[in-house]
């Protein structure tokens, strides 16, 4: 049985002085909305509190939507569940195999052919060579790219790349699926096909955690939701209820 348990999880990003590290750019993008604090006893080192004392529990069958402003900690939370970030404080226990779908075009090489990219991306996702070979035909068929799969990826249009990335990413069968924003894919005809596959794909997952700004997407996919602000959990519960609170929060910010 798949389950996710987070207890008092805190994640803080160190921001190094520009003189000692030239990384301002990324930290700013990761930090918008998070709380910026000074490291105790330090005058130069500040930290961004990306997650602050977050406790959550999801179980088999949960479809969870994460909502909140930019930088509320949604992506960081997904990365903590995926095991990419280990928290500074707190406990994370995840049962089941996770599959992150953050940037589905990641790990694709423009100089390699479509088939080579299927292999490459499959290896990234932790599949065995044999398993990838077995799935390659099915993936190829789904993309409808035909002989283009023998050509380098750089000859593809953006939509074609998306088809390929989407097909490979959804060919695995994870217990826990972590999605950051919706997965858009190609033209209208393909979209319908993609939606069917996505439903099949997500239907198999025991737990889905989906971070999105689209209320429609969350309504259609999730039964639970978590509202986040500045790295803290404001509310968890029924999706409808939490979305209502999110709307109120947005309205309050505007007014």
């Amino acid at each position: 049985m798949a389950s996710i348990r987070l207890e008092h999880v805190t994640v803080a990003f160190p921001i190094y002085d520009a003189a000692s590290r030239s990384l301002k750019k990324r930290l700013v993008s990761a930090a918008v909305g998070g709380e910026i604090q000074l490291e105790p006893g330090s005058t130069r080192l500040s930290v961004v509190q990306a997650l602050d004392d977050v406790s959550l529990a999801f179980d088999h069958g949960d479809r969870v939507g994460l909502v909140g402003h930019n930088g509320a900690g949604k992506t960081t939370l997904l990365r903590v569940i995926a095991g990419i970030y280990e928290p500074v404080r707190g406990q994370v226990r995840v049962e089941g195999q996770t599959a992150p779908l953050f940037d589905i075009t990641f790990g694709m090489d423009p100089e390699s052919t479509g088939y080579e990219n299927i292999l490459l991306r499959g290896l990234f996702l932790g599949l065995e060579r044999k398993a990838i070979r077995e799935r390659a035909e099915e993936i190829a068929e789904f993309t409808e790219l035909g002989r283009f799969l023998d050509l380098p990826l750089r000859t593809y249009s953006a939509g074609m790349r998306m088809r390929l990335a989407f097909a490979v990413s959804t060919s695995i069968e994870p217990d826990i699926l972590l999605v950051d924003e919706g997965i858009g894919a190609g033209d209208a005809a393909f979209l319908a096909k993609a939606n069917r596959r996505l439903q099949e794909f997500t239907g198999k997952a025991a737990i889905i955690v989906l971070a999105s700004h689209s209320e429609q997407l969350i309504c259609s996919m999730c039964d639970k939701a978590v509202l986040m602000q500045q790295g803290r959990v404001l509310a968890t519960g029924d999706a409808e209820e939490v979305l209502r609170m999110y709307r109120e929060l947005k309205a309050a910010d505007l007014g």
Partner: protein
Amino acid sequence: MEPEPHTQDSWLWSQLQASVDAVQFRKALRDVGDGGKRWPLWGHMGLHDIRQRYRRSMLGPFWITVSMGVMVTALGLLYGRIFKLDLQDYLPYLTAGFVIWGFIANLTTDGTRAFTGDEGFIRQIAAPLSIHAYRVVWSNLIILGHNVLIYLVVAVWFQVNPGWVLLLALPALCLLVLNGMWISLFFGLVSARFRDIPLIVSSLVQVVFFITPVIWKPAMLPERTLLVDANPFYHLVEVMRGPLLGHAPSWENWLGVAVITVIGWSITLLFYTAYRWRIAYWV
């Protein structure tokens, strides 16, 4: 490099004290073990790195071989003259040394980019971080394989017959690979945090090249100095160069390499235990 402010030092120090425990140590060991098991991935990535660099060129990866050949021929002819050495003896020595040195030096400079170079991967998918170190070592092994061809040509040309001693090159290579792993992990880790390290390392590597007996021979010095015996790179090079040239490395060489391996891995595991989980935050 600008000195780190004291406060950051003390943070790093307190981290070191706080996070070196049995749990983190086991995690670090498991990371290195599990990373090895992902060989289909890093094997593919390493090969890919090489193919990528030479894609659509006519000779492909054999450009590595060609450029090494040009290099040792030019250096050999020049320094053979300067040192007034018999090419019969000097060119095989230079070639073997240069090929091995190239492996160690490239590995070290590539190692500094082990984690920062794969930043996208690290932040996208949870995987043992040691994968990136394996990838560096593996792609450098492939390059070594191409460079060794030049040594073969030179050895045949000058009729160097190492005999059975040549077999010792195999354990020597294993030791070099073992050292390559900690070098990549260690320099990859510290470079992820301190971005000046890659720059420092690449300039130091050049200096070390000249003070290590690669183009010159230890026998050329009037007396044995610390420059040779206390130079870890001398032992690393000699332990494999000896067998290639047909004489067994001395026990000092084996001992030197063993000491480097143990000390290197100890320090690396200590750092890896303490800071492994921070790498995702640093890259």
